[in-house]
């Protein structure tokens, strides 16, 4: 089982619903977020392109955060989801420095926090909160090992990219183009 997420940049309007839904679902303190929106404009007026992405922890298969964590608080859980065991976290921030995606932050309670792919929902067969609220259905979540999963089909039929592939982290969040 390899969990992954695909964000359709053609559908995403950058409304931030995914961000608020994550904050309420996971009680993320105001001022912090586990996912966020990036808008990239290219070209000059009037020949312009705009790419909008909902970004988060990439749940890398070769995760620098897991490698650098001195206490093994950062670890791979079922399906390749990268999690932080907060009781083991000493707040050294090595993972924050090593993450090329800037996906982690220090929770006011002292441990490092980030996207969990809503593991508590996924375990019950639900989509992560961000996916479940998206008004344009721009995100799909599922198992890459299942060829019939929605995400496998999307990846097979659409052009896609991942972020900073040159970092060699084998990210599991993809962007459909």
């Amino acid at each position, binding site marked *: 089982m390899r969990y992954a997420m695909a964000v359709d940049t*053609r*559908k995403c*309007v*950058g*409304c*931030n*619903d995914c*961000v*608020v*839904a994550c*904050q*309420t*679902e*996971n*009680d993320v303190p*105001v*001022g912090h*977020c586990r996912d966020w929106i990036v808008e990239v*404009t290219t*070209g*000059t*007026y*009037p020949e*312009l*392109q*705009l790419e*909008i992405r909902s970004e988060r922890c990439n749940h890398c298969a070769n995760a620098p955060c897991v490698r650098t964590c001195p206490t093994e608080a950062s670890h791979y*859980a*079922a*399906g390749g*989801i990268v*999690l932080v*065991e*907060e*009781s083991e976290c000493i707040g050294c921030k090595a993972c924050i420095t090593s993450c090329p995606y800037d996906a982690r932050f220090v*929770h006011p*309670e002292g441990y490092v926090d980030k996207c*969990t792919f809503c*593991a*508590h929902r996924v*375990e019950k067969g639900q989509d992560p*909160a961000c996916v*479940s*609220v*998206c*008004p*344009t*259905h*721009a995100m799909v979540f599922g198992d890459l090992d299942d060829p019939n999963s929605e995400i496998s089909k999307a990846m097979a039929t659409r052009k896609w990219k991942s972020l900073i592939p040159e970092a060699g982290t084998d990210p599991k969040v993809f962007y459909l183009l």
Partner: protein
Amino acid sequence: MNRREFIKIAGVGAGSLAFATPLFDFSKGEVLAPDVHPGMYSKRTPTYCEICFWKCAGWVHTNDKGKIWKITGNDDDPHSNGRLCPRGTGGVGMYTDEDRLKTPLIRTGERGKQVFREASWDEAFTYIADSLKKIAEEHGPECTALFTHGSGGHYFGNLLKAYGSNNIAAPSYAQCRGPREVGFIATYGEGVQSPERVDIRDTRCLVLIGSHFGENMHNGPVQEIAQATAKGASIITVDPRFSTIASKSKFWLPIKPATDMALLLAWMHVIIYEDLYDEAYIEKYAYGFEDLKAHVAQMTPEWAYGITTIKPDVIRETAREMANASPRVIIHPGRHVTWYGDDSQRLRAVAMLNALLGSWGRRGGFYNPAKVAFKQYPHPPFPKPDRSWKDAFPGKYKLAGLALASGICDATVPTTERDCSFKAWIVNGTNLIHTLPNQANTLKAIDALDLMVVVDTMPMEITGYADVVLPECTYLERYDDIRVSPHREPTIALRMPAAEPKYNTKPAWWIAKGIADKMGLGHYFPYKDMEEKLDWELKQLGTSLDEMKRIGVKKFKREEDDLYPLQNLDDFEFYTNTGKIELFSTAMEDEGYDPLPKYTAHEEPPYGYYRLIYGRAPMHTFSRTANNPLLSDLMDENSVWVNPKIAKEWDLKNDQYVWLENQDGVVSKTPIKVRVTERIRFDSVYMVHGFGHTNKKLSRASGRGASDADLITRVHIDPVMGGTGMRGNFVTFRFEAGKEVAS
């Protein structure tokens, strides 16, 4: 992944609560199986959203401590299809906002200075009732007006009617969508309504003129645009700004602002003279086709090019794109359409273009909405007022279908000609200082009032001018009227409290009923509480409050199978004078207005000034959400979009703060951050509406960003219906604050 891990992730000590007995009241809402985190129970209660007026139905989830946890969409609701927008999801922040109004207040200081003393509800009601009685005796009850935007309007409206006035205005008419209704009614005999009757789901071509869905997060259309484009529909976006939706469009027409009418006329020219129109449809339903054909004979794409800056081949190509999709094409009427003062006529042109393409009453065009016949809880008939707001404007705005908020405001400023100006305002859920253009005029009107009552959840700028401030609880803490909405299928939705009202706040219905009781008008509110009223009303529809608490939304069958009444050229009589679709409007002609829309050149920005264009951000609604802790966390200030060429001329850098000064020398009260971007024309600047609050009681919003409303001092009034055109203001950059210090 084991269970221990995600108990930890929950980070709320869920483990210790693991098997606690749920403590909630089972009579309210539905208790679900463990849903939050293992061992935590949650309860869900139905609601419909109040953050904007799309009114999506959803569920409020509370945890076992009764704390509101999250809000999600109701799958059965055609407004939300189970998915709320960021504002709906962030509605929790409206409830948790610690800056909320907390108790009734009576003003003790100068108007606008926000100096009040706390009062009891009884004291506040007595104050209001005594003042209203005095005004009725001295000037007549008609001199009292209600401004409302939201669910409370119904109860305060009934209070006003019981008292003897029907001057009930919503800024959503004259400041927003009024011209659209007038333009469509003049053409089809019916308006566009809300939610708009556009069949985006099944369209093949969607034309958006200034509409910026995606940034405007009206949920239904945003969802349906994603569905339609996934099925291959094309979008044509006309906007001086490269909006989010422009970036997803097949064609982006970066039109010179204020010239849309020329483009619409040229499109009609191409469609008529290239024989692209729906001949059978026009033959059967339309009146005045030959008049229109002659009218647009000279309005070629070459003519329009010189006005709009859109190249003739692009005008032709886009006209053909629409015609190829006909009748599954929508030239979208938009919503906030009060731009240049000839807006009813522009929206007439939009309606006519749709008619030429045969999209009205057809699949993929405009559907025929249905709603249930809803019977209100009975009350005695209201007295008939002797005067209405229209009497203040003899011979003007003849096609206005609803009261004009701006008209009432104007009629409050005393003049020698009028025997009675307005003496009292009740303002519910609308921050008139930011909502109405021309603030100086609004303040002059307020100054002439004997009484102003503001009912709101938040301390806004308008509350500072009130004599009495009444704190309303949020929509998450109250019952409201059943949402009865027109859609493809009729539905109703219930809003019920998910938590007790915080602080000393109360629902609008309770407030209106309380004032009525004090004034001896209690018999117009003959129910004990909302549960009694709603249950009676729901039973008339064959359901009940108990059932609605469980399901939240109920769908009904359409009475007739007429979703697309013109699909097969069926016989149809339109509610116009001729019974036809009026390309030539007899109603306009009868009232002395142009029966066919004409292009009028609008004023252009003076040298060194740029047209001020404003719009929406997906996470905010007007000025009402700026302090919401969840939503302000996403966007806590607006910026002014400046084309790089202009930025270079002025030596403006990204993130630099500037003040904006308009053509009348009015300077923004607060500075605004510069955003240098290719996404805006060189002759315009753009900002998101709703920022630049000056009320210091808004701890997150005060002083953040700037208010476009401050700068809209010049208003172009639509002579047909009194709409306030607000896009005729021009601004330049200043590097220091204006003389007037922000209050």
